[in-house]
């Protein structure tokens, strides 16, 4: 990757004109601030001055005075904290009356209806697929730590079903079971109404919709007042209902056009176009003071943030550390797994659970899985390789397994449970134990309620009986052999890990005596979408020891409300245990790093510190790191012509994995999955993750933290390709998701993974 050819979706912004202006001050209260904004949003901007607890108001149109009871002059050129609200207000004024403004912060504007990406003569005009531009003011820091204010611009596609439910009913579309929105009046007339999800249609009575799983007060709404939400799958379903047999090509054509906009070149072009427009739009901060919009920031500009390519992490394949590789698949093929000398048992008992009608296909799949596919070569020219030529047994240095198949007489939970029971009975009668079960499932099971899903049902029954489960979708088994070899790589890796095997360790650059990295991930388990459903939080801990990172064998999952307490408790338990095992001394330096799916609250950070202080460790530092996939930053690599190089079709202009931009001392952008990691050309432009360090952190080396988070994405025992998040978060997500599903199964017993040996394995992969 050529770092010199990067481009951020960030246009520098500066001020020109006489920047000394009058502003008003008054004492702050939240209610008053809201009231002022509601009343004067067209003429003033308001900010809460935290330092002196005041409301600051600035007139932004001509012939208007400050409202505050104390008026002072300030120089905008140095009052950088006011630039963002002023720019935001200027954008709203610039677009008001010209474009539909969907949101006021960050400002989102919609493309013209005339440029609808979906069209068909029988589609009503209120079915819209249109572009949306978003503008977020931000300050970043260049290589010399000098702040640079600017505007982040993004472009994407939004689906809208603006017709009412009554319109759909009039067109004979059955909408029962769908969630509906109502539009609430906006606070600012220049902005579109705010839509709010109110409930799911249970039935229709006259012109009214009777709702279930609804917000209080919305048990019944008029069909003419409600409309369907614009989620992509609802949108496509609606087109299908409206056009019937004609729908498929229309949907496909619209998707193709959306893909063009979401692609690197499409996005960059749209962003450049809107930046060009803004540069000539005469944006004013206040009368007489203009915003000057620069070009998109390129890596050749001195204002560009510090950038590096993080090297691939080193994986260790033997205890002495002499066998290492930066490529997991290559390393394991060359060296074998880390624990090959100590792994036991070498001769596995494998139960295969599948539907009776698919037994032949499944048997063939299992044979390929165990013995390999040496004749299937992938790649081109001289680079052709048998990616799964060795097979599970040889790759992990196992002996020939004892494999027995147990069939379910249908695709139901009960049928699968009966097959599992047969397998368990067989093991009990033969006085042996199944080391792992390979379970054939189907893609369509995902659409079933968790309580009826054979995927969760077999997992519940077998895990409870100490048998780890590797599920394989029928659709995977049916893949072309050229694709199947890659799936086999993943399945074999995850299976070995579930057996308790250790494929490799991640080398740690230990500059501090002891380091613990705690990851938090979450999953929302519910059939309800009102009230947020029940969110579970998973907790995974990794700690450094003897120059590598080890995964703590006890994970945890708790309801969201209890996570702060559970985090503290898990942390304490882990520290106490590792401290004893590694013979820590009280004076040893200890570093605690938290990878979080949400920003930590001050109170949570302080609670953790208080809990650790009670452990009598004298030298502890903390880093609370929020790892966010959603944020307004985009990186373009202008040299990236697409992947793979010999047939470029995906990830054009996408940044490469490992790219790290240090935006400030507390923020970094890191590309965990880049152009090469995209699966399909339709995946658009790969996005970096935004890493933000909480202010209460006492360990503040963002470069170290970014590199470590990156290393953890390459240390997954679930898939051979890098994870989109560090395993600390990804594993936590998986634990939360799996346990949420398992809890829906009547026969499940949480104690199986909390207290029994199966809980020490990576059962959740």
């Amino acid at each position: 990757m050529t770092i010199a050819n990067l481009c951020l979706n960030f246009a520098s912004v500066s001020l020109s004109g006489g920047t000394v202006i009058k502003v008003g001050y008054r004492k702050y209260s939240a209610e008053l601030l809201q009231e002022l904004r509601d009343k004067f949003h067209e003429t003033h901007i308001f900010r809460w001055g935290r330092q002196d607890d005041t409301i600051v108001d600035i007139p932004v149109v001509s012939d208007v005075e400050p409202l505050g009871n104390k008026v002072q002059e300030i120089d905008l050129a140095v009052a950088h904290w006011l630039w963002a609200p002023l720019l935001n207000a200027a954008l709203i004024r610039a677009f008001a009356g010209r474009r539909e403004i969907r949101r006021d912060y960050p400002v989102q504007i919609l493309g013209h209806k005339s440029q609808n990406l979906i069209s068909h003569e029988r589609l009503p005009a209120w079915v819209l697929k249109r572009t949306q531009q978003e503008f977020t003011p931000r300050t970043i820091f260049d290589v010399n730590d000098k702040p640079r204010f600017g505007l982040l611009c993004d472009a994407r596609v939004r689906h809208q079903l603006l017709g009412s439910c009554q319109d759909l009913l009039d067109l004979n579309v059955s909408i029962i079971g769908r969630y509906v929105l109502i539009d609430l009046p906006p606070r600012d007339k220049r902005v579109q109404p705010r839509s709010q999800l109110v409930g799911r249609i249970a039935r229709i009575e006259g012109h009214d919709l009777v709702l279930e799983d609804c917000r209080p007060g919305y048990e019944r709404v008029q069909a003419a007042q409600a409309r369907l939400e614009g989620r992509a799958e609802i949108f496509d379903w609606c087109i299908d209902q409206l056009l019937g047999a004609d729908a498929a090509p229309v949907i496909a054509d619209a998707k193709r056009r959306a893909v063009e906009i979401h692609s690197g070149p499409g996005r960059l072009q749209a962003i450049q176009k809107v930046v060009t427009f803004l540069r000539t739009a005469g944006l004013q901060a206040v009368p007489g003071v203009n915003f000057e919009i620069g070009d998109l920031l390129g890596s050749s500009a001195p204002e560009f943030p510090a950038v590096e390519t993080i090297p691939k992490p080193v994986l260790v394949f033997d205890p002495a550390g002499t066998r290492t590789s930066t490529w997991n698949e290559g390393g394991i093929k060359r060296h074998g797994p880390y624990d090959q000398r100590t792994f036991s048992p070498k001769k596995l008992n494998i139960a295969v659970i599948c539907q009776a009608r698919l037994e032949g296909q499944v048997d063939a799949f299992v044979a390929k899985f165990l013995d390999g596919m040496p004749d299937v070569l992938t790649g081109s020219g001289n680079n052709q390789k048998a990616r799964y030529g060795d097979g599970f047994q040889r790759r992990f240095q196992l002996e020939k397994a004892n494999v027995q198949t147990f069939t379910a007489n249908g695709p139901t939970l009960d049928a699968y449970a009966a097959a599992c029971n047969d397998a368990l009975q067989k093991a009990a009668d033969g006085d042996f134990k199944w080391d792992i079960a390979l379970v054939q499932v189907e893609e369509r099971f995902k659409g079933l309620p968790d309580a009826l899903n054979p995927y969760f049902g077999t997992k519940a029954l077998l895990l409870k009986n100490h048998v780890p489960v590797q599920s394989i979708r029928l659709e995977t088994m049916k893949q072309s052999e050229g694709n199947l070899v890659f799936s086999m790589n993943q399945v074999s890796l995850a299976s070995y890990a579930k057996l308790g095997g250790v494929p490799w360790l991640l080398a740690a650059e230990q500059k501090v005596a002891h380091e613990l990295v705690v990851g938090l991930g979450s999953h929302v388990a519910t059939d309800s979408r009102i009230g947020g459903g029940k969110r579970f939080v998973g907790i995974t801990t990794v700690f450094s020891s003897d120059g590598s990172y080890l995964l703590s064998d006890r994970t945890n999952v708790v309801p969201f409300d209890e996570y702060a307490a559970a985090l503290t408790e898990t942390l304490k338990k882990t520290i106490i245990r590792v401290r004893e095992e590694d013979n820590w001394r009280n004076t040893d330096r200890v570093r605690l790093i938290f990878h979080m799916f949400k920003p930590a609250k001050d109170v949570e950070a302080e609670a953790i510190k208080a809990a650790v202080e009670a452990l009598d460790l004298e030298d502890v530092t903390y880093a609370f790191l929020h790892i966010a996939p959603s944020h307004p930053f985009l990186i373009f690599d202008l040299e990236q012509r697409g992947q793979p190089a010999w047939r470029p079709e995906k990830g054009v202009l996408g940044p490469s994995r490992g790219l790290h931009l240090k935006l400030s001392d507390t923020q970094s952008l890191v590309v965990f999955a880049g152009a090469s990691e995209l699966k399909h050309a339709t995946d658009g432009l790969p996005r970096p993750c935004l890493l933000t360090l909480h202010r209460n952190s006492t360990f503040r080396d963002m470069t170290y933290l970014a590199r470590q988070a990156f290393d953890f994405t390459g240390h997954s025992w679930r898939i051979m390709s890098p994870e989109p998040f560090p395993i600390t978060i990804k594993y936590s997500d998986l634990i939360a998701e799996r346990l949420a599903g398992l809890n829906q199964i009547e026969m499940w017993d949480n104690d199986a993974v909390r207290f029994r040996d199966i809980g020490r394995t990576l059962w959740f992969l």
Partner: protein
Amino acid sequence: MNVLDLKQGLTLHPSAFDALPVHVAAFCALMVRDERVRLAEFVQAGLVLDEQQRHYDVAASLGYALASGERAEVLVEGFRADAARHGGRKFFAPGRVPRFEVDGIALLGVAAGLATIEAKPAETQWLVNLLGQSETAVADDEWQLSLIRAATAVLTDRDWSKIPSIVLRVAAPYSMGFDVLEEDRQSAWAEITRLDVGDDEIVMLCAKRAVLDCAASVLAAMPVHGASVGELIKLLDGIGRSMSRWTYEVKQRVRGREPRKWHVDHEYHVQSMLWAVLAPIFPDLIDEEYLPSIGHKTPRYDLGVPSLRTIIEVKFMRDTGQSACAKIIEEVAADVSLYLHTDGRFDRIIAFIWDDCGQTEEYPKLITGLESIAGLEKAIIIPRPARMKKKA
């Protein structure tokens, strides 16, 4: 196999060490005598680290350095502290991936270090226990098992016969200065000459190199090479004659070049002289090695030829008279009693005395006195040549 080819095959490229973990590099350096100088570098790099950063691999590398003869106090104390810290750990903890526990090279390094500093049983018991568990864990891996059994042997009974790998059964004791059974040496020699060494991993390559050196040291001691103990004595005796050509120019011999005088001013100059004479003939010649401590005393001999089980102790007699001779006899007697008690590799000593005053009249009585000391094989006295006039 041609021995030269074998030696070539067992010669490491210096860069081979760069990619190795420190304890593996230290093991290799111990095995290959020409590379032992690296151990001092590893010690320096290891001791610079904060104690908290010294993981087991660093401790093992310090252990190998100790086993090679390094004896700096800071090294001994640093290693002792590291071993104590690691000894307090909980090994094979349930649900935890073992690392140090199944890393044979690391276990051997720590064991070798503990054995060298003659750690008390209370300091070594944790490792003895761990080695028992480790042996079970790696039972199916012959090489790891061999390393672990070598660690047990060096730490306990010095019984190398339980090491399954014949290569390590010779390489480990030889490189740490212990006796090697002749039959093991022959078997190991047969093993390393039997197979192509090209595909060996570096660790095995180095162990084989130790076997080669071990075999070579025996060859060097064979009479056919003129290097038995008797031959050694003859060589040392002949040095007096060699001194007739010792460079000590009083006038210019080559135009444009200043006259040179190779002064012999102290004991180290004499040692260097002997090294120059003996090293080409005795490949296992070693100098200034520490021997295991006796109480507060850590003896260090001047030169040693393990293959002949012989130490050469050099003395520099600076003064004249009977009292000076008596002092030399006392010193040699003390050395003999220290050296032969503390190291099982040696059972005879040759005293080589440089008489800086040339008092040849005292020699018969002095030699009789010295050679009456039990364990002293021979006393050889070289008078300072008359032409080497002392500096004013």
